[in-house]
């Protein structure tokens, strides 16, 4: 249990690192670290398949997408960086306090609740759940994938014309 608590604290620290990072690249890498922490927590909570997805896609592919996007954008000059750092510190100085306060309040307020689900969903095999019980989700996912592909193709096609 103590390991889970340490992992959760590291998770919050890495999320705060994303917020407080002066450079976008450091922010993107901190986000990958957050994903890695969630992956370890998933392994601890007996969900290895979702953990593998989280590690390979969220910590890998999404970081690559972010770094590619950052590489397209002109980096800030040293003076702009110092100025934006000052502004960022002013904006986010209360965030850690707010986060700690909210965490404490919720841990005090939270009460035992019953979370029993209907028996019909109690399937142990992920394959059966994904392909039999959640077929509509898969259909929606396929449509989203198609729209995404079309969106990316159209965006980059117009970019080439210009």
């Amino acid at each position, binding site marked *: 249990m103590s390991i889970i608590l340490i992992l959760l604290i590291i998770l919050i620290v890495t999320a705060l690192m994303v917020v407080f990072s002066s450079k976008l690249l450091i922010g993107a890498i901190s986000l990958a670290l957050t994903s890695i922490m969630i992956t370890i927590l998933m392994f601890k909570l007996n969900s290895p398949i979702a953990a593998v997805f989280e590690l390979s896609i969220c910590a890998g592919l999404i970081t690559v997408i972010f770094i590619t996007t950052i590489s397209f954008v002109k980096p800030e000059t040293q003076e702009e960086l110092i100025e934006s750092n000052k502004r960022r510190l002013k904006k986010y100085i209360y965030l850690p306090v707010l986060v700690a306060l909210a965490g404490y309040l*919720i841990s005090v307020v939270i009460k035992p609740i019953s979370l029993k689900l209907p028996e019909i969903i109690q399937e142990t095999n992920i394959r059966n759940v994904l392909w039999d019980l959640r077929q509509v989700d898969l259909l929606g996912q396929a449509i989203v994938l198609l729209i995404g592909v079309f969106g990316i193709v159209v965006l980059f096609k117009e970019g080439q014309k210009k």
Partner: protein
Amino acid sequence: MNISNMDILKIFIPFVVMLIIIGFYYVLMTKNLIRILLGLEIITKAAILAIIVVGYVTNNMALAQSLVIIIIIIEVFVIAVAAGVIIHIYKNTGSVDVRNIRNLRG
């Protein structure tokens, strides 16, 4: 539900809420489009963690994992399309500041 599961819920839920607060605060306060995407990612991670924890507590890991897999795949496409839009905006306006996107201003 036995006591250990309730303890896990009690430990995890405050951290999930903390992650959501960090993400929302970041999205609301920043003016940089790429940073807004980073904030959205943090919120999504909180949602994923919440689903996994509730799946563990209710002994429904298969359903929770399948939901998380679907969320992750859709998340990638949202990020990819949003990144394409951001690159386009940068090419048109020369910056990734939300205050410079004034094309639709009446």
